Structure formats: C-alpha cells, structure tokens
C-alpha cells in the first residue's frame, strides 16, 4: 500500500527527522485559515496528495510567493485531476531554499535477499533516470537484516555521495531514520527524493513509503481506502479490488480466469497466440474456495468487455471440485446472460470437478489448446 507524502513525512518526523513545516488541507476546508493557524509564511509549496507517479510533472506541485496565491492554487488543485486522480488532500509546505538535491531509497533486493540502500548525489530525477544518465553516481549497499543499517554504513554511504562534516552526520542520521521507518513499517520501498542539502543539514522535500500489503494487519493505524487516490486503477479494477479480486483490465473481448500469476499470464499469451484478445487478467490465486470462484465468474459475467469467458484451472492447492462448485453457483445465481463459458480443468480433484460441471451441463476440457481454440471460435 502506498502512503501519501504527508504520512511518510510524519513517520520520518516521529523518528527524529526534521521535515519542512507544513499544514494539511482537506477539500472543503478554509485554506487561508489553515495556513494562518499553522503560522506558515510564504513562499510555500502547494502539493496535491495523490499517489500517482510523476505528480510534479503532471502539475500537482506548485511553488507560490504569496498566501493569496497559495489559496487559489490549492483550491484549483482540488478541482484538477492529476493523471486522472482528483486530490482530496493538499499539503502546503514552507519552501526550503537549497542548493543540492540528493536521492535516497531503501528497497529489498530479491537476489541478495537483503535490504539495499540506494543513494545518489543527483536527486530530483527518478532512479531509472539517474540509472540512465548518471549510473556511476548510484551508491548501493546491502544491509544485514539482523543488525540493520549500522551507523558507520550510513556515514560511508554519505561519504561516497560526496558529503562531509556536519552535513554527513545529518545525512547519516536521516538515513538511519529512513531505515527504521522502512523496517518498522514493513516497507517495500522507503524513498526520499529529493533530499535537500540545506546549509549543513539534510531535509526531505519529498518522501514515499510503500507498505507490504501482507503486513498491513500489523499497522492498523495506516488503514484506509486509497485505491482511487492511487490513480493506478481503472473503474473496473477498483471494483475488483473492493471485492478482493486480482484483476487487470485489458483491451480484448475474452474474459480470463485462471489460478496463479504464471498460468494466468500464460493463458493470456495462449489466447493471443490462437487469434483471440484477452479482456482481462484475473488470478484467483492458490487454494481458492467455491465462493471466490463464484465471485470471479460473477464479476466477469458483469464486466462488459468480456464477451466470452475462458476459465483455465490447473489444480494444486486449488481443487477442481471447489472451482466447479463456484462456476455452477455463479451461473445458477446470475442465470444465463448470453456469455459463452469455456472451462478447462486439470490437476487436483479434477474428476470430481468435471463431474459437478457435467451435472450442470458444462463440459470441461482437459487440453488447454483445444479449449482455447473453442474460446476463440465461440
């Protein structure tokens, strides 16, 4: 789950990081009063709190010189979609004059199986851009997850991106705080970019934190619906997520349900290979029970792009009988709505599944190629 900038900054601040003075304004609140009560003096930066990438370039961040301007910019931001997302929150933050912008991030390196700290003296651009334009400027250090980021490592990283003296000490403290936020909040990513050098200290001008969805139960204070703010999802994807379905909208007309990301992607590949066009990716995951299958089938029956439905299941922990029950239940509840459904079933409990489907009048295929041909022709 992505956190908003103001949330990430407030976590950093909890761990002792100095962040720019700011005030958060909700849509409908009195922007001027809020700025005045917070004692903010211009110039300030008005920042849309949305979770889309490239918010700045899309017009979501404005530097203004007067309070009047701040108010009008904020009010306008509440009306303006940033990459399709209309902000419900705006952060008004003291502008911090600075010379240098650094890049810092912590992610988990899958191959090393360790957290890796990334830093560069060239902040302000995203990491892919730095990797393209200044690859030699990126310092990487793998961290022992049991000891955490040691003090000397934080200093070493700072030194390697060219810092020294008090700035280096400030950077090292910042990096240790960022690492604590990363681990204590189960971060997939903790990033500050740009991290400004202001005199002899560093101040995060932006901050991002993506929390591992699997660990959200440990952080109830971060809960809240951010699906729409993220700007990542289409209308039907939002609907699917609200129902707990792993669904990606595509442009074709063949609705796909499969189990496991690998097989679901392969089913898409297969449909294309035989001349069809997938309308979606829908992975019911491992061990789906009948009710989840029913929900998935029901969803595609309603999803207008899917003119026909291809269910391709190879059971392991998922059982054929549960899949069959789910399909039958969905059809009997929603009735016949004219979408052809082709089922291919193999693996664990496939005989029982096949029998249940047959009793409901559905013939399940064994061979996926035979099944996909049938779907494309249907």
């Amino acid at each position, binding site marked *: 789950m992505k956190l908003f900038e103001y949330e990430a900054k407030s976590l950093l601040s909890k761990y002792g990081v100095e962040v720019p003075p700011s005030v958060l304004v909700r849509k409908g609140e009195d922007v001027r009063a809020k700025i005045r009560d917070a004692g903010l003096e211009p110039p300030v930066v008005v920042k849309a709190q949305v979770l889309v990438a490239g918010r700045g370039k899309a017009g979501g961040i404005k530097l203004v010189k007067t309070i009047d301007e701040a108010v009008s910019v904020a009010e306008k931001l509440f009306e303006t979609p940033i990459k399709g997302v209309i902000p419900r929150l705006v952060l008004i933050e003291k502008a911090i004059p600075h010379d240098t912008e650094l890049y810092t991030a912590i992610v988990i390196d899958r191959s090393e199986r360790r957290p890796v700290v990334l830093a560069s003296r060239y902040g302000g651009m995203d990491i892919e851009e730095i990797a393209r334009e200044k690859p030699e400027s990126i310092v990487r250090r793998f961290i022992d997850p*049991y000891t955490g980021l040691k003090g000397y490592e934080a200093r070493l990283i700072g030194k390697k991106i060219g810092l020294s003296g008090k700035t280096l000490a400030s950077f090292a403290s910042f990096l240790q705080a960022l690492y604590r936020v990363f681990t204590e909040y189960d971060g997939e990513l903790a990033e500050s970019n740009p991290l400004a050098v202001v005199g002899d200290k560093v101040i995060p001008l932006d901050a991002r934190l993506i929390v591992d969805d699997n660990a959200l139960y440990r952080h109830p204070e971060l809960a809240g619906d951010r699906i729409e703010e993220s700007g990542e999802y289409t209308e039907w994807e939002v609907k699917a997520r609200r129902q707990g379905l792993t669904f990606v909208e595509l442009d074709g007309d063949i609705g796909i349900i499969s189990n496991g990301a690998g097989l679901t*992607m392969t089913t898409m590949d297969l449909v294309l290979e035989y001349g069809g066009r997938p309308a979606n990716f829908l992975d019911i995951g491992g061990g789906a029970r009948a009710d989840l299958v029913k929900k998935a089938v029901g969803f595609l029956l309603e999803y207008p792009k899917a003119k026909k439905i291809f269910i391709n299941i190879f059971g*392991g922990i998922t059982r054929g009988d549960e899949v069959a029950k789910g399909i039958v239940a969905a059809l009997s509840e929603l009735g016949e709505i004219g979408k052809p459904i082709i089922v291919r079933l193999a693996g664990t409990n496939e005989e029982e599944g096949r029998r249940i489907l047959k009793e409901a009048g559905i013939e399940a295929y064994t061979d996926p190629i035979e099944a996909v041909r049938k779907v494309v022709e249907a």
Partner: protein
Amino acid sequence: MAILVGEDTRVIVQGITGREGSFHTRLMLEYGTKVVAGVTPGKGGMEVHGVPVYDTMEEAVEAHPEANTSIIFVPARFAADAVYEAVDAGMRLVVVITEGIPVHESLRFVNYAKSRGTTIIGPNCPGVISPGKAKVGILPGHVFKPGNVAIISRSGTLTYEVAYALTKNGIGQSTVIGIGGDPVIGTSFTEALKLLEEDDETKAIVLLGEIGGDMEERAAAMVKRGEVSKPIVAFIAGRTAPPGKRMGHAGAIIMMGTGTYKGKVEALESAGIKVARMPFDIPKLVADLLT
C-alpha cells in the same frame, strides 16, 4: 538419486490439522511420501490420516529422529515462527507453502536458515516432487512421471501444465521444484541450477520464468559463465502482459532496466538457452535436446 527430496525423505507437516495441511498430508501419503509426524500447537496427541500429531517440533523430532524435512501449511501470521522452529529442530529442508507472509519476515528467516545450513523452498510455493520417489508439496502427483528432465519454476500451476505436457509426450522428470512467487524466496533459479548441475539423474532442465525481477537474467549469466553444462529450455510467462501493470506477484518496484519479457529472453538466448514461445512447445524442444 534426486535432489532435495527422495527415498530418504522423512517429512513432518507443520500445520497438519488445518484444512490444507490435512488434505495434502493425505495426498502426500497416497503418493508414497514418508510423512512421519505432524505438528500443531495445542493439538498434540491427535492423529491425522494415521500420522501422529505433536505440539512442538522438538517433541516430533524426539519421537521421530529420522525426520529431515518439514512442510509448512501454517497461516501467514504464524508461518515465520514455524520456519524458525523447523530450522532450530535441525530440518535440512523446509518447504514453505504458505502465501502472504510479510516480506520482511521472509527476509529474516531465509537469512537465518542459510546461516544454519537449512535449505528453504518458498514461501508461496507448490513444493518439490521427485516423481516416483517423494512429493513434499501440493503438486498434483498424477501429472508427473519419473525421468531425467528437471523443472524449476516461479509459478505453481504453470509447472503442472508443463510437467503434464512433458509426461503426455513420454518425457519423465527427475525433480520438479516450484521455487515460489514471493519477492524473497529461499532457493532461487541459480541455486537450484547449481544443485541440478551436480545431480546424476538430471539430463536436461526446464526453467519456467515470469516477467519481473532479475532471476532469469542471473540464471542466464550463470550459464554464460559456464557453470551449467546441462542443456536448458526456458519459457517466460507474461509475453503479452501490458508493461507497467503489476500482474499478481510479478514485477519489481525498481526495475533498473531488467525484468521485461524481451530482456529476459535476450539474456537467456545470448547464453545459448532455447526459449519456448508457448509452454506446449517445450516437450518438442526438450526431446530435441535429449536425442
């Protein structure tokens, strides 16, 4: 001989009294796997399909000192603790089926197990099978048959699909490993390749990858360095997936130029590995290699 699991495998099922634990204990027993004990805290003294249940790994190992492998069906919140318990009890292989374990926990227990010489498969994986010998996992046993082609795969169901296609074409398997789909897993492609390279029974290897991450690129680099002499056929799922969308667990946050279908295929091909366009092309490519 087979790698990871074989005739000498003696299994303890952690979370044996749960729905999946109990169901797959039965399927493993039916397959001929020697499941010697189960563990569920608070359920000691029960039996599940004739397998005695203990409260702790310590008691299970005391009663069954021949146990060397554990398979974990424990719910995500308690799975990491179960892994530590298995490692501390001296298991040489721990197969973690559980899905949804926080990545910071996997990160820790994977490092912990490694420093103590325990091999972890998973988490979020279908397990390992050496057809005809033993199955430690949830893979549907009937789609496999004994032979000398190994499969290593990031995707469970795709593994079954490919094994099934090989089997139907008369090509048996030595060992099939579903390495798991989580961002951090105990055994990667390169580590699995190292084991297979030393396995007498494996003559050829099928590698089933996915878009995202750089594990396939690392495997390719390993082959390029000459560390794998056995022939490999690969398939990468996600050729037609639109870029920038996360397809389930596929896709890394910071890609640094790796992780695309094209990049992976180029890396593999430049290492001399045949890449199948569709999984159903694999049996033919493997048969060509073996003749």
